[in-house]
Structure formats: structure tokens, C-alpha cells
């Protein structure tokens, strides 16, 4: 649930992956979550993720064995064993894949990721921003196809190589990269699993106790509710492999709020006033149940609440804003914060 919030619209509650993980936990020992600070500098950490489109996973369920394979492929390539598992992205289903892999390999899971939320492309990762070498990366199809990207010119090139591979393999591939304990300590976003768990339990606990889940989340994460009302229009179009669009929300007093998205929510505004913008974490919730809504789940007539959670401090540096700020997504203005808070 927390991961769905951190996906900022990139996905809803990952029910199927949750089922798969629950099933795995019945057969395996529980996963140990370790703080990145506790990693030795020379620890070998396997970074894993699903690359592709979310839709095929509604038919071809994320399989722990499939997502564990590139870890072993990379181990063979490097001639070494991994000490721990970590995820590239804490958002939605990609938060559960490292859990599945950690359970399958019986390795500890590092409480960190490289995006701090969801962003659409590889170059927005903390490692790419820091200029770290992303290669080698092992790629596995669900069949007996394994590949290694031995060298990549840049983070952007990793993105450009992985997309066509995903298409060729049914739009779902499992990937694994290798990074050291030192790199993770210096560049990854720490504590993101703990944060997702905190957010999830704030919402779920409030739902069970019939309290307001959104208010409970805002208190826990120092967020603010920007607008609340009914969706009167949802516009979506695909360009360059992304779902871009905007949703119009009719609020009390006939005021209209507009949220624009490119896979993830980017900008919330009313009239000429910008309420929140990327890298603020913008999320939409079902006003009544308090469930986070991905852009795919939005529909005409839904009662929704638009929420802003503070951005991560690391996303506000000039170097980071160049890839995760409004201009990186085609807007013609610079980032301006609508609150003083930053995370953590």
C-alpha cells in the first residue's frame, strides 16, 4: 500500500505481486531488512527490477523464480556471490520484486532504493545522477533467454537498450545490476522500505479502525491535501512510450483542479496557481476508502483527493532537478516548493 503511494500514480495496489509474495513467505523464511549504513564498503549488492509495461503482469504474473534468475546470471558473469538484495525503485510492484528475490535467495534486503519513489526512466535514478556505471546488467526473459549488458555508455543508454529488449520478450523482463556497499551508502535513498511500510500501515490501520485514512497519512508523512472533488474529465494519450495526460477535478465552490501526468503525477494546479510540482510526491486517493489511485484507475465521476508529500532533499540539488524537475518533463518553469518540509 505504501509503495502504491510512493509510485505517485505509476501504479495502484500491487495485488497480484502481493499474493505471489504471500505465497512465497509460506514456504520461505522471512526476509531480513538491513540498514544501508550497516553494509561493509565492499559488500556486493544485487539490484533488481521489472522493466516493461504493467499490463502484461495482469496476465503473466510476476514469478519469483524469473526475477531471481538474473541475480544468478550476473553472479556467474562476475564470478562472485552477492551479499544482499536491493531494489531500483520503491514504487508499486517494483517494491515487491526485491522482496521476492530476497526471500528466494535467502539474502538480506537493503532498506533503500535508487529513485525514492517512481520515475519513468533509468536516468532519473540516483546512481545515474551521480554518474555511476550502471553496467553490467543481466536481463532475463521468462523463457530460457539470458543476456548481459557488459558495458553501457550512460544511464540514458541503459534505458534505450532495455526498452526494445522488453518489447521483444513480451514487455516484461527481469533485470539485475551490481553495486558496492559504498556506492549504496553514498548515493542510494536510505530507509525507503521503512517509509513505505509506515505509509501503508498509516492507511490500512485507519481503514480498519474507520478513521480517515488520508488524514492519517498526512500526519504520518507531513503531507498536505491540495484539493478534493469529483473527476470531470480524464485525458490520456501515448507519446514516446509514455501515457501522458491530465485529469480535471471539480472541487467545492466550482473551483477546478488539474493534475498533469506522464506515467506519474507531475503537476497539480488550480487556475494559474501551481499547488505542487515534481519532484514533490503528488498522489491521488479515493476520497472515501483512502486507496491510492494510479493514473490507469482514474475514471469520470470518482471522488478523489489530491495529496502532496514533501520531496526528497536529494531531489532538490541542481544536478538532480535537471532530470527530475519540471523542465525535465517539458514544463517551462523551474521548481518552486509550496512547503518548507523535505523528506526525510
Amino acid at each position: 500500500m505504501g509503495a502504491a503511494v510512493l509510485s505517485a500514480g505509476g501504479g495502484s495496489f500491487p495485488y497480484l505481486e502481493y499474493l505471489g509474495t504471500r505465497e512465497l513467505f509460506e514456504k520461505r523464511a522471512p526476509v531480513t531488512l538491513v540498514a544501508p549504513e550497516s553494509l561493509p564498503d565492499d559488500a556486493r549488492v544485487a539490484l533488481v527490477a521489472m522493466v516493461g509495461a504493467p499490463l502484461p503482469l495482469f496476465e503473466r504474473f510476476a514469478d519469483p523464480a524469473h526475477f531471481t534468475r538474473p541475480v544468478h546470471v550476473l553472479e556467474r558473469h562476475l564470478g562472485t556471490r552477492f551479499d544482499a538484495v536491493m531494489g531500483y525503485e520503491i514504487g508499486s510492484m517494483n517494491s515487491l520484486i526485491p522482496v521476492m528475490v530476497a526471500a528466494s535467495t535467502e539474502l538480506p534486503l537493503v532498506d533503500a532504493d535508487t529513485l525514492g519513489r517512481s520515475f519513468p526512466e533509468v536516468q532519473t535514478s540516483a546512481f545515474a545522477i551521480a554518474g555511476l556505471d550502471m553496467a553490467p546488467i543481466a536481463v532475463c526473459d521468462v523463457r530460457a533467454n539470458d543476456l548481459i549488458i557488459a558495458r553501457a555508455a550512460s544511464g540514458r543508454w541503459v534505458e534505450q537498450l532495455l526498452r526494445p529488449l522488453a518489447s521483444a520478450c513480451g514487455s516484461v523482463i527481469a533485470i539485475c545490476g551490481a553495486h558496492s556497499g559504498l556506492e549504496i551508502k553514498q548515493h542510494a535513498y536510505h530507509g525507503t522500505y521503512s517509509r513505505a511500510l509506515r505509509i501503508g500501515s498509516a492507511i490500512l490501520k485507519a481503514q480498519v479502525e474507520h478513521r480517515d485514512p488520508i488524514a492519517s497519512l498526512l500526519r504520518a508523512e507531513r503531507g498536505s491535501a491540495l484539493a478534493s472533488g469529483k473527476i470531470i474529465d480524464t485525458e490520456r494519450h501515448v507519446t514516446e512510450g509514455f501515457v501522458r495526460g491530465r485529469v480535471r477535478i471539480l472541487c467545492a465552490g466550482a473551483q477546478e483542479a488539474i493534475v498533469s501526468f506522464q506515467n506519474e503525477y507531475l503537476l497539480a494546479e488550480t487556475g494559474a496557481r501551481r499547488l505542487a510540482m515534481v519532484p514533490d510526491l503528488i498522489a491521488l486517493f479515493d476520497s472515501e476508502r483512502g486507496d491510492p489511485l494510479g493514473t490507469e484507475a482514474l475514471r469520470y465521476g470518482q471522488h478523489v483527493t489530491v495529496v502532496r508529500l514533501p520531496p526528497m532533499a536529494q531531489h532538490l540539488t541542481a544536478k538532480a532537478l535537471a532530470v527530475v524537475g519540471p523542465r525535465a518533463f517539458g514544463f517551462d518553469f523551474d521548481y518552486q516548493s509550496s512547503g518548507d518540509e523535505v523528506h526525510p
Partner: protein
Amino acid sequence: MKRIGIDVGGTNTDAAFVDGDRVMASVKTPTTADVTSGVKKALARLLGESSAARAAQAVIVGTTHFVNAVIERKQLERVAVIRLCLPASASVQPLIDWPAELRDAVRGQVALLPGGHEIDGREIAPLDESAIYATARRIADAGISSVAISSVFSPLRADHEERTASIVRSVLPQARLTLSKDLGRIGLLERENVTILNSALSSLAQRTTAAFRSAIADSGLGAQLYLTQNDGTVMSAEMAEQFPVLCFASGPTNSMRGAAFLSGIDEAAVVDVGGTTTDIGILKNGFPRETNTVIEIGGVRTLFRMPDVISIALGGGTRIRTAPLRLGPDSLGFTLVEHGRVFGGNDLCTTDVAVARGLVALGDPKRVAGLDDQLVLGVLDEARRRLEDGIDRMKTQAGDIRLIAVGGGSFLVPKMVKGVSEVVFVPHHEVANAIGAAIAQISGEVDQVFSDLSREEAIAQATALAQARAEKAGAVPDSLSVVDVEELPLTYMPGNCRRVRVRVAGKLA
């Protein structure tokens, strides 16, 4: 066309005779434990009121029989499940998230075999025919005769399910097979769930439709039998026999369709005030607006087409307690005519208050003549507040909308309601659900991914497919119109992919 509509609800079995656009007769009878004899009784009374009903060409039944079987875990049979998916999709097994007692009642055998397709139509793996033969023989040895077959992305390509079905049939000629491609949207787990539920109901469906047929024949009618489905349209008894799961939500759907017909209004909110609860829904193009979220039936996730309806605890039998004043949530239910104050009993309920206020003439008004005015107004105010709340939750526009009030307890709906421009009361409102069944249309639906087509071309192709499906189900081609279009571009997909859902509906031939 002359039609008889029958709604078999939990409390009442209602019947109505409709000729063209006119309601000629209607009756309300208690539902019997044995559904069939209740239908016979309703038909006998209806024919007593209007002998012209004998000339009806169609009897259209809306029933909660199948959904109740799932909810009560009764009369279900064991199912063998074959999923064509390997090497993918093995991590989430069939029936994995079903309530344990339902799974125990339904799970016969489960086999995961190679097969299924990618989103672009390529095979995940070729079928392993010898494995399918072996599985079919194991099913036969276990004495199971109901088989559910699912395959990855079968709404896009059905050939693996079809080939598997023909192999199973060659080993088990008598088996009843359900293929997920016939029930489905994208979402393997939910589509498979519905396929398995359908298999579990397949012999009950045969018995029930046979019983409806004999009730019609025994009543001396020569009419064709139809059943209503979740979206307010009908299907032939033969279709219902094959796909009983499609009948799950006919109750609220029929009452909303009946409300649209009786009022002549296509865009409005509808309240159906029953004995225990009030259903509130929204009519769009004369059809109930549907939910977009996952619907659970008896604890099982499905992707059903279901009307978006909320139920609030307010009905004609809602019990009233005083000091402090409290409405419900319990109801006198079918004991209303015994325990209600105006009927000679000692319990106080909303109907008593309505009689005291002169909103409806029922029972003996003298028995409530002494009720405190404050109490009466307090109860009606609370009823109004609950209705206004519910309507506001369902509304999709800021402005006022029209409201159609139907159901036996609709006298509780005030003439002025906040957020409502006009409250419309209609004759025959107490049997709106049976009338909704009588006037139900035939529909066809397509939900598929299209690639390398423009948005307009994809929607046009989907519409043509939906029309062909509706015609095959028995609709008059000229009467078909589009009732819903939904289009979703697919992220990261090559070739301009979009998922398009189109639904058309038209008159019964």
C-alpha cells in the same frame, strides 16, 4: 412484442405483463424456498389478472438464484481447472485467494500446462498436447465432469483454449466446459475466477433453466425463455445455461431499467426503496452506470460488469426506537405485515410513521393516530438526510439531477430533495424490477487490445465486433446502439496499442 417479466428476489417474486410500451398487469407474490413453484404461482396470478398475457412471446426472468448459490456455498459442483501459461504465471495458483470453505467446495483438480500468448499475440510456449490428454484422463478418472480452461491473454488469442477444449471433449464427451475467453476481460486471475465459478454452477444452471422452462410450459404459455444479466440486457436460456455467472447482478439492474422505462427518463438518479434497504444508482443513457473497481462475489475477485449501486439501511420495514430516536439498521423484513403497528403488531417502523403522516394508506391508520408529531417528523427528517447523503455520494455532476423513486417503500422519498431538481414518482413503481426484466435488451461487448490502428479505426472495429456478438445473441441489427465506449492507450507498448471496450445493445428480435 408481448413480454412477461419476472423478478425472483429474496423476499418477493414479482411479475409484470408488458405489451409494447404499456404495462398491462403486475403482481407481487412471496418467493418460495423452491424458486420454481414461486414462479408458477406468480404466473398463475398474472394470467388471472390479464388473460391476454397468455399471448406473451417471451418470458424474461431476473434471478438471484446463482449468486445466492455462491454466497451460501450451496449446490456447487467440483471443478477441474486447466491453466495454459507455463513457463509464466505459475507463481499465483488458481483459487489462491478464495475463501477456504468455497475453495474446498469447488476445487477438484488444478493443472498448469505450457501455452498462452504474449500481449503481441506470439505464443509464450506451444501447447503440449500429450500433457493435455494426460490431464483429461486424470479428470475423467477422478469422476469430475465440469472443466474450467484459462489461458494467458486469451481475450486476444483464444486458439490455445479452444484446442485444449477439443482435446478434453474427445476424452470426456459429456463434460461441461467453460472457456475463459468467453467471460472476459484482461486480468487472468479474475477472469479465471469467473470461469471456475461458472463451471461450479453449470449443472445448477441446467436444472434451473429446465425448471423455469417447465414452469412456463405448465402455465400453458408458449413463450421463449430469457434471463437477464448484470448489465440490464437479456440472454437466451441456452446462453444462461452456459454462463450462469452473467446473471449475478440482475436485481438492482432490473429495477433501474424499469425506472427508466416507467418514467421515460434516461439520465437520472434512481432510488429503489425496499423493505430493508434502499439501493441508489445512476442511469446513464437509460442504463445503470457500472463500477470500474474489482467486484467480489462471495469473497471471490471478479471483473464483472456490475451496476454502481450503494445500499443504505433504510426501507419500509426499518425499525424505529425512541428515547433516543434511532432508525434501524434492522428491519422487520417479511414480518412487517404481522408485527408492524398498522398491521396490528407492536413494533414501530417507517411504514407506520408514513401512514400516520398520510403519505401512504396501509393497514389501520387509527392504530398510529396517537403518534407524537415530533417523532413522526424526526423519523422522516432522518430518512430524508440518509437519502440526500446517498444521492450526493453517487452524483457525478455538481448541478441538480432528476430522481426517480421506485420500490414498495418509495413513499419515504420526500417530494423535495437537496441536490435534486425533481422527484419523479411513477405508476407500477413497486414492481419496477419485473418491468425492467420485461423490457430488457440484447447486448454485445468487446474488450480487446488493438495495435497499428488509429483511435477512431480501433473503436470502429470494436463496435463492429460488438454488434456481431449482439446479433448472434438475438438482437435486431437496426435497433443496435452503442451504450459504452472506453479506450486506454497502453504504456511502453510498441505499435500504437490501445485497449478498447465497446458495448452495444438493441431490441430482442
